[in-house]
């Protein structure tokens, strides 16, 4: 469960914060509301990513590489190239999955996987710029201004407080997108996502819409 929440948080922050610039606003709600306005202008997004998972279930850190993309209102592509080849495309209510080992396309309905469903719902909220709701569960502070680093700590009353210790967002120097997201769990596990080559509001490569993408 905590893994799912971590990933949901990670994805949410990544997609929600990209392209945001920090202003010296003391009021968190006003600040996030401005971000919401900016994000409402984003229609598509594409980025290379590196994900580093440090989990107690593994002896070593796992390093995952790939490409992600999004298009309003409900398209999401998640293409992993290392250490396994794996693609997932969500279009509306349908999820298509393909992996290089079985080389089979699996089609499932979003509703049939509650864990994934929660994550997708959250991601969609953030893609469409719905940030204000995030403050219901988290308090946030500005740790650094150059580059901008925001730290989100779950409120004690929040259900995620049981699993998540903190979430750190590091922006690119020019504040055009999020460079890195770190999620630290209470059990000691951590998940770091690093993004490069973020492209906003450009038409998505048609290959990225297919699960059998050859990147």
């Amino acid at each position, binding site marked *: 469960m905590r893994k799912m929440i971590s990933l949901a948080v990670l994805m949410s922050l990544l997609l929600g914060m990209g392209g945001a610039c920090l202003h010296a606003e003391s009021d968190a709600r006003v600040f996030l509301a401005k971000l919401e306005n900016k994000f409402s202008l984003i229609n598509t997004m594409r980025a290379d990513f590196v994900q580093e998972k440090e989990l107690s279930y593994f002896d070593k850190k796992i390093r995952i590489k790939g490409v992600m993309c999004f298009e309003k209102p409900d398209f999401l592509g998640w293409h992993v190239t290392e250490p396994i080849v794996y693609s997932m495309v969500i279009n509306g209510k349908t999820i298509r999955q393909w992996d290089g080992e079985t080389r089979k396309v699996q089609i499932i309905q979003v509703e049939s996987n509650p864990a*994934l469903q929660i994550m997708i719902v959250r991601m969609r909220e953030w893609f469409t710029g719905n940030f204000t709701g995030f403050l219901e569960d988290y308090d946030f502070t500005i740790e650094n201004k150059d580059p901008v680093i925001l730290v989100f700590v779950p409120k004690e009353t929040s259900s995620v407080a049981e699993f998540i210790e903190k979430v750190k967002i590091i922006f690119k120097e020019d504040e055009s997108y999020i460079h890195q997201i770190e999620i630290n769990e209470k059990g000691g596990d951590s998940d770091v996502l690093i993004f490069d080559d973020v492209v906003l509001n450009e038409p998505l490569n048609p290959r990225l819409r297919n699960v059998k993408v050859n990147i």
Partner: protein
Amino acid sequence: MSKLTFNGCFSALYDFITKRQNAFISLFLFLTVAAGAGIFYVTFENDIKFMLPDESGVRRSINFLDSSRISNNVVISMKLNSDEIPLSELTGAIKEFSASIDSPLITKVKDIAGASNMGKDANEIIAYAPQLFDKADQERLTQQITGENIKERFALIYRQMLMPGGSFMGAIMLRDPFGVSLSVLSNIEKLSLTLGYDVVFEDGVLLNRDKSHAMVIMETSVPVTDAFLSRKLITYVKEQLSLLPDYVSADIIAGHLHAVDNETILKRDIGLVSITVLLAFFIIFICVFKDMGTLTIFIMPIASVLMAICLTFFIFRQVSYFIAGMAAVITGIAIDYGIHVYSAVRVSGGRSERVKQVAKPIMVGALTTMGVFGGFLFSRVPGYRQLALFSVCGISICLFYSLFILPQILRGKRSRNFEGVSRFIGRGHRHVKKRWVVYFWGIFVLLAALVSGRTVFENDVRQFDGSSKETLAAEDKFHGTWGGGEQPAIFVVTGGSLEEAIVCNEIVYNEVVKSGAEAGFASIATIWPALKTREANLDSWKRFWDASKRDEVVELFKENGALYDFSDKAFSVFLNTLANPAAVKEGVPINSELFENIIERFVNEVDGEYQILSFFPDKDKYIKKFSPIAVNSDRTFIISRKAFSSELSQSISSEILPLSIAAALIIITLTMVFLRDARLTCIALIPVVSAILSITGALALTGTSLNASAAIAALIVCGLCIDYGIFMVYSCRDYGRDEATATAVTLSALTTLIGSGTLLLAKHPILFSIGRTITLGVLAGFLTSFFVVPTVYTLWIEGSKERRGLA
């Protein structure tokens, strides 16, 4: 010693009361006032159980539905009024509504478990799985414990862990790499789908497939048969719904709405009918006859009905609204006796001899009517027994009043207005062409009998539901949105203790498996077997996972886990379960929210007894398969809503035939006893036969089916029409064709027709049906008694006398 005769006895009693008239009038007034005051303390009920036979399967089904949480749900379906408003507003509104519920009438707002606690639940379920470890699991596991299989499984878990959102499922797979808990999870999922609606779960809210509507289910302690509390409940829910934002609209779906609607409509109908009857009677008796003495006839049946209701309440401790509705009909019947006495008094100028002469036919008529209603006392239906008591009491009181009190009050002058009306009626009566009447009646009877063959008896009890169009439309809309139009049938297992019920439930499930239809049978036996079975399963788990097998698995895990960098911790939970499985607990076997939610729907506790429910599609093929299992034990039964509907109808209808036969026998026997002549009895029965044929013929011609309430009303018609027949036969025999009797019969029929005719204004289907039947029957009965009975008497009785005289 003088011979004891009816006339002698009546005359003695009449004279005795006449001498003490003031005391009797005062007593009657006192009783009337007391009954008028007492009516405010009478409790009226609108419970369908009252209209069901005692100890019937249907009554058990209704009791079950009453006591279980199944029928006591209030469902709210909400939707956004504009497509431009985001779904989050709808889910937010339904959450706020749920949180706002704070009433003792609502015991719970149901929390449909989503994925929020799945992680915690998964641990519990994995720990519990050994208690469900059967032979099939053992065979499957034996095949899975190979290096190749484990390597393949680890590859799958590794891939799963790297997928977005997959860490969660991956972690669960690590805790149970052989999937021993998968069958438990699958069964839990299957059981959770027995909600009966087509739903998806999102953001903690139940949504329909296209996510246009959200739903909340509330549990209430209010039985759907309790109209009073149902009204309070619905009012409360509506108040809470009124607080919703303007952009959200909501529908309430609950059996309680039907109870409220039916009570509202019954109250309205009873009020309307009472006022209309009073007005009509007032116009006829006061305005037409211009005789204030008629006011006493007018008050008499009301006083009798009031006393009868109080007596009924005294014996039954409650009075059905349907009985109250029948008061108008009883008023129409009871007033007849007063009319006959009034007619005799006004024609004779108050001579007691004339009253004594009409007493016998009045008494005979009243006794036959009471005989018909009295037959209902032997019914298995409490409502019919109540109707019998109420009617017999009402008619008896009215009869006594008419014969002994009314003449004392009316004593004195003749009424010119009455005589005028009487002459007018008598004139019409004399102008009847003998043979034409018989020919016309013969053709009518023949045609009606032919058409009556097409009469259909309608069993469906839903025709008696007087729910509003809004309620029915909301239900149609709801089923269109959410499905669930066809609720599943329920297999109920009972037990004195929870474990006893669980054991019985397991036995039933095993039988269902033997029948090969377990796929459609949702039973908690799949996840909650009996204590002994769980202990046996756990023993077999321990035997299977002996030390050598555990060591073998540990080695295989180390070897293949290294290929994917899995740490030792990755499989520690599973290996610990192998060595130290959770102990068997009495009662609810595991601590899981998912499990608790399922138990809530599948286990009931009623008065210290436990009921375990299983659900299956309400289709004939399943009912046929499972019914033999249910009849094997007196602790099991099936609730099929489809079968229930027809059982309920049959249960009600099954009373009608014996009651009809009893009524027919009572009418014929009493008429024969009093008239002491088979031919006169046949003539007196003409209005009864004509009335019944008119009812069945008219219903068949208009394509309307006969139902239980109409059949009961038809029996009442028989009681009324035999009165008309007897009066006319007595009149023909004793006075020739006297105007007073013809007038009295006409007025009797008119007052009854006013009573029954006003029921045609009723919106409630039962009252309307009763009104239609009585109006049709009494009209036909009156016309034949007025025109046909004297004619047939003349042709048959007097004709034969003439023929004998000639001979």
